[in-house]
């Protein structure tokens, strides 16, 4: 790690921010006491099982549940008929929106199944074994329909259409016929075709990447309890308890006030736990059985039925001047979004060139549906897929022009004030600083061995703010209780405690943080979009400032002075005038007398956080390619990132390392594989090859801290950027190792070996 280990050399302006205290939930987690999705038990709880479609595309002719219902121990069986028949209605879901009918039908198929693994029925029984046995007794009569798995198949004339009511949006005229193209979206400026025609050097190519899963360790799981009075409790592991409440209420026609969702600990999300799959089904099972019901996915269910990130095919042409100035870019990409319209096309198009100044460009994205699981967000959704071709082309141009790969990026890098492709001037961004830091890093100038190559790639993600609520309560002893509605995925409890301690000028250990259920705190948007430390942190800071104001006012009354004659310093109120001048009252001393003044000392702040800034990263990757097998080893890897101010550097570095590892997996090993019948061939970690520790070197990190002026401590989001550059960095490293470019990911040994043989 390059980050200094002590605050004195790192962040002298702060006492707590920038240090590395032990995480407050660490002991509970390493001792196995933490309660995750499948750990929660409710009194009288039943166990659920879901019957899933073996067909990628079929019409459900009938479902006969009688044998299952007759099995001793079975308490309820549900199908799509038990769900409200919803109209096609878009609902707001925080950062984006979703079609509530499609979300409901993804939880439980109604008339059609759209992918292998689509839920068609569910059972609740007194044991998991009985539930599984009963599910197998359900007889479903399918009319098997032809299916499509690839972009070419999905867009071919006469292709089977998944949704007969879906017409391509974004075209000048509404198409006459429905199709599998959900959306076409173009952004651009200038005259890209003319610029490319006049360019000194032009490179082009077709690039592709497969759909990949987020790979969280903990499968989706929940317990739901529907009471006789219509009130519902849900315990679930997710990125957003309020998201679950909103979606379950909308799908099932229940008042939000009647649903209380308690967030359990989460074993990874990465964007994949921003949707509901099981919760509405568990509620319906509980309503029908009258008892709490647990549903949990197997690993195969997770792969088959919960959203991966979409695969992509992209055609790109880039033109440059002789000095490396990029003069024009034209890119057309197609995202393969699975069974329902995806969310990656807009973000992919808007992100593709967001880290460069390109005067002439046109980026067109298509959202294409096929008979695979509906896709979900994966860290910076859409950006890895579209920035990968851009970074490969820039590398090719650098090679053709004999330029250093960092220098060419510096020449074209977006800087503060530059107007981007969306017409917005950049704020205090740090891409150029990241490139400079990468160039200065010892890794960049280290010698390479035989069969080795070094790749560089940059990337960006926009981040987010949005609504959050936080409360701060003082105990009678002066200790501090912070409560938020943001599930802790990446160490946010520690970050919240640190920001509270910094604001209050007290020790980190004096603050405890709780993640509340949806009935115990105001709304908070889900933990995603790299927003929690920024937005929820801002709410915590403002609440602490309110606490300070209250403490000063209480002390002023005790001292019979005006509040202006008090000062907050070192976690205490100091008296500046009168008889008590020079004395002070600690938080505990004031809190102990709260009952004699205005009552309990507490503050709640609900805000809509503004001023978020995008993050940027530059990755350096060394690979070694075995000339006899084509196997690629990553021998050294360095992540450089503009992180704003790092509140807890361990967790920032952890995000950088984790995102890089996931991106390396996307580049080298991972991908959904289907057989000819449209069934997923690799729904398990043995065949779906995510990188493990022994596959990777220690990933070095360099935090470039360019503070965000719109946050009290300068926070920017950090969780999504690091998955963006690895696809390009690895591909560029392999390209330089073997002397030719492989355009298709993953760079599996067979693919790399075949390319090398083709060369020879």
């Amino acid at each position, binding site marked *: 790690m390059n980050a200094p280990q002590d605050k004195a050399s790192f962040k002298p302006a702060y006492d707590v921010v920038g240090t590395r205290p032990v995480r407050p939930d660490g002991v509970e987690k390493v001792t196995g006491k933490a309660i995750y999705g499948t750990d929660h038990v409710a009194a009288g709880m039943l166990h659920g099982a879901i019957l899933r479609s073996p067909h990628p595309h079929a019409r459900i002719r009938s479902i006969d549940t009688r044998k299952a219902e007759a099995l001793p121990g079975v308490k309820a069986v549900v199908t799509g008929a038990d769900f409200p028949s919803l109209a096609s209605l878009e609902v*707001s879901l925080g950062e984006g929106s979703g079609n509530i009918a499609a979300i409901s039908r993804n939880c439980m198929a109604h008339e059609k199944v759209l992918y292998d693994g689509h839920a068609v029925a569910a059972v609740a029984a007194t044991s998991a074994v009985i539930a599984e046995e009963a599910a197998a007794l359900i007889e479903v009569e399918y009319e098997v329909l032809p299916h499509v798995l690839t972009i070419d198949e999905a867009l071919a004339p006469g292709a089977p259409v998944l949704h007969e009511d879906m017409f391509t949006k974004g075209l*000048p005229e509404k198409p006459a016929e429905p199709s599998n193209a959900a959306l076409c979206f173009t952004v651009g400026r200038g005259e890209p075709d003319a610029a490319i025609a006049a360019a000194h050097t032009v490179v082009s190519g077709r690039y592709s990447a497969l759909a990949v899963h987020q790979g969280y360790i903990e499968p989706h799981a929940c317990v739901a309890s529907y009471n006789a009075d219509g009130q519902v409790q849900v315990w679930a592991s997710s990125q957003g308890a309020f998201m679950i409440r909103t979606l379950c209420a909308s799908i099932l026609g229940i008042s939000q006030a009647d649903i209380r969702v308690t967030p359990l600990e989460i074993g990874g999300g990465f964007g994949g736990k921003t949707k509901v799959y099981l919760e509405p089904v568990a509620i319906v099972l509980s309503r029908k059985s009258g008892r709490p019901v647990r549903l949990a996915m197997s690993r195969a269910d997770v792969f088959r039925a919960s959203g991966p990130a979409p695969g992509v095919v992209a055609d790109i042409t880039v033109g440059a001047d002789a000095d490396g100035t990029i003069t024009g870019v034209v890119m057309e990409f197609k995202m393969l979004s699975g069974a329902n319209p995806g969310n990656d096309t807009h973000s992919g198009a808007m992100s593709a060139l967001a880290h460069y100044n390109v005067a002439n460009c046109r980026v067109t994205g298509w959202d294409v549906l096929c008979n695979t699981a509906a896709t979900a967000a994966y860290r910076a959704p859409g950006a890895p897929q579209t920035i990968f071709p851009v970074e490969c082309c820039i590398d090719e141009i650098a090679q053709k022009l004999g330029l250093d790969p960092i220098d060419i990026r510096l020449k074209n890098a977006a800087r503060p004030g530059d107007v981007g492709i969306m017409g917005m001037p950049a704020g205090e961004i740090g891409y150029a600083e990241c490139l400079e830091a990468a160039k200065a890093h010892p890794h960049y100038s280290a010698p390479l061995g035989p069969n080795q190559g070094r790749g560089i790639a940059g990337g960006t993600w*926009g981040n987010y703010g949005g609504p959050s609520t936080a409360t701060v309560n003082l105990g009678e002893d002066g200790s501090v209780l912070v409560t938020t509605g943001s599930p802790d995925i990446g160490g946010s409890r520690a970050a919240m405690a640190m920001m509270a301690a910094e604001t209050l000028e007290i020790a980190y250990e004096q603050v405890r943080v709780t993640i509340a259920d949806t009935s115990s705190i105001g709304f908070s948007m889900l933990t995603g*979009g790299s927003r929690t430390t920024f937005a929820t942190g801002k709410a915590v800071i403002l609440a602490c400032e309110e606490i300070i104001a209250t403490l000063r006012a209480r002390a002023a009354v005790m001292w019979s002075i005006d509040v202006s004659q008090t000062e907050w310093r070192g976690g205490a109120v100091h008296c500046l005038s009168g008889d008590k001048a020079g004395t002070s009252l600690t938080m505990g001393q004031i809190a102990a007398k709260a009952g004699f003044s205005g009552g309990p000392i507490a503050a709640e702040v609900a805000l809509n956080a*503004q001023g978020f800034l995008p993050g940027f990263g530059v990755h350096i990757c060394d690979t070694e390619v075995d000339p006899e097998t084509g196997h690629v080893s990553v021998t050294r890897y360095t992540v450089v990132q503009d992180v704003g101010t790092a509140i807890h550097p361990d967790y920032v570095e952890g995000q950088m390392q984790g995102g890089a590892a996931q991106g390396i997996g996307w580049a080298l090993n991972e991908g959904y594989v289907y057989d000819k019948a449209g069934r997923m061939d690799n729904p398990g970690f043995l065949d779906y090859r995510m990188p493990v520790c022994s596959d990777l070197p220690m990933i070095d990190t360099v935090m470039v801290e360019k503070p965000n002026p719109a946050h009290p401590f300068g926070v920017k989001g950090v969780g999504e950027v690091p998955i963006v550059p690895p696809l390009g960095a690895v591909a560029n490293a392999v390209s330089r190792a073997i002397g030719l470019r492989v355009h298709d990911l993953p760079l599996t040994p067979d693919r790399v070996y075949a390319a090398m043989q083709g060369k020879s």
Partner: protein
Amino acid sequence: MAQVHPLAPFAGQFFGGAQVLDVAASNLFALVDALDKLGPGFGEDAVLRAAFAVNGMMQTDWSAPLAPDAQVMVFPRVAGG
């Protein structure tokens, strides 16, 4: 008058491909109302899908005052992971 720059898909879908629209509005609520009159249906769509940047800064608080000469970009909202 605020200068509104609707980008794809809103420009084509609601405003006949117009690149710039002059709109008098005191905040984004009023601006969305005004744009809905110019392009019926935009208001409903904006709640679900539109993001706004005011003078180069993303603005999700529609109640924030809008300067008379504000530059407003309208583009699709994107969700993170």
